[in-house]
């Protein structure tokens, strides 16, 4: 007698769940395609014209982008510092092993999640509307953005520290301020620096385009050269952006490797 195969349910035998998920996925793609108008004419003339003009960069424009590039880096540094420092006390409030009150933790995390859901360009648009055009708006936008990001990275790091030193200090009668300074900070300090550099990398990238909305830095030149159809100058701006981003990434990666 042939050994009987174990019976499979109808759902499993015909892979109903897998097939229906696939179907949903295909429908989603088709609907998205319809809503975004994918498949319209792609004008290769225009596109290649753009690239041909950009492939002959106007090097004489290089000196005039140096100053805004400098401001871009300054904005990113200042914004990251403000946001990063502000994130420290707030992330302590959200860490499970520091604050035992679940309500406070939940509230802090909820508010910070709301902050984190806004991309930096939107923050820049808001700050330009409130504060006005200039690097100050850019710095504020980057500060709020880094605040949210550093907060998340930091409180997760604080939650994974070794509990031993905290308990030892508690047993010796230390107050919570002393516990934070002598047990928490030494354990997360290197990680803090590493997160700081990582946030800085992202902010450098962001700050290069913030100027498009008038929030300071090189992005403004992106806007003006494109509007004047000076693509030969646009390519200088893009090359400058690429150079800054790559240089900062390399330096930051080196430093982070040493910290780890």
């Amino acid at each position, binding site marked *: 007698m042939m050994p009987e195969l174990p019976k499979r349910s109808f759902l499993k035998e015909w892979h109903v769940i897998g097939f229906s998920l696939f179907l949903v996925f295909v429908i989603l793609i088709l609907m998205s395609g319809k809503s975004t108008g994918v498949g319209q004419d792609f004008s290769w003339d225009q596109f290649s014209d753009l690239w041909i003009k950009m492939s002959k960069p106007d090097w004489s424009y290089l000196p005039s982008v140096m100053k805004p590039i400098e401001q871009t880096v300054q904005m990113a540094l200042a914004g990251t510092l403000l946001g990063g420092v502000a994130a420290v006390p707030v992330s302590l409030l959200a860490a499970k092993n520091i604050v035992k009150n679940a309500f406070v933790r939940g509230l802090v995390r909820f508010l910070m999640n709301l902050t984190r859901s806004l991309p930096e360009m939107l923050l820049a648009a808001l700050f330009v509307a409130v504060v006005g055009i200039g690097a100050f708006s850019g710095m504020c936008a980057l500060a709020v953005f880094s605040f949210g990001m550093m907060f998340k990275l930091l409180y997760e790091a604080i939650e994974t520290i070794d509990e031993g030193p905290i308990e030892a200090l508690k047993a010796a009668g230390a107050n919570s301020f002393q516990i934070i300074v002598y047990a928490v900070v030494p354990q997360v300090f290197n990680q803090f620096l590493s997160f700081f550099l990582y946030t800085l990398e992202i902010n450098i990238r962001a700050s290069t385009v913030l100027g498009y909305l008038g929030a300071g830095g090189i992005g403004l030149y992106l806007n003006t050269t494109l509007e004047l159809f000076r693509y030969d100058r646009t390519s200088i701006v893009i090359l400058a952006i690429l150079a800054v*981003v790559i240089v900062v990434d390399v330096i930051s990666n080196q430093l982070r490797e040493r910290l780890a």
Partner: protein
Amino acid sequence: MNMKKSLFKKIEPWAITVVVIAIFIWAFSGIPLTGIKDTARQVFFSIMRGLFHPDWSYVYTGDGEDLVSALLETLAIAFLGTFISAIIAVPFAFLAARTNAKLFAPRSAFGKLLLTIIRVFPELVLAIMFTKAVGPGAYAGVLALGFHSVGMMGKLFSEAIENVDHGPNEAIAAAGGSGLDGLALATFPDVLPEFMNYTLYRFEISVRSASILGIVGAGGVGAPLIFALSTRSWSRVGIILIGIVVMVTVIDFISGQIRKRLV
């Protein structure tokens, strides 16, 4: 000799501190504080009032010019962009993955360089370029995101490929399987959950990116926001901001739940 080293060690932290402080003084010196508008306070409170008294009538009007359709378009851009780039990223990832232990790997180095260039190229600039090719609209946004995300996903995918367990591959080779068999039966099943995880992660980021593409006319919810900001209709700004926050939060939550089950 020993003394000198300890002296250097004593000075080192102070030197670093001084350098860091100098860098930040330089950074803050470049931020002009004079550009702040006199109306800043007033505008701030107007936006706050707008946030608490949002323009609910804008949420759904049925003519396709409302918040819901703008948000759906944003999601569609992010979804399609991520889908396209997830597919394009796979060959790039295999190109960039370092699979042999030799000291110099030109193929992998070339792939990594390529991916870095794609990743570093600002997506807003890409979006502007694509609007020149296909005209303003969501299609340009899809193309920009689809191209830009390849850089990040290719990098993450290639790292997943590098961390693959070689055992199954060797077993298939020992049983007489070809390289393609090894790829299809050992490597792919191993990296697929990670690929999906990274794709979902990138989708979360793409939703955020897609909501700003409207600034350059590449579709999504960014355009009505900029328009509302420039016409100072704060209650509309309020409802759009609430819409973006809700959309991003919900997507993050769903994607996080799926990713938890994948790993």
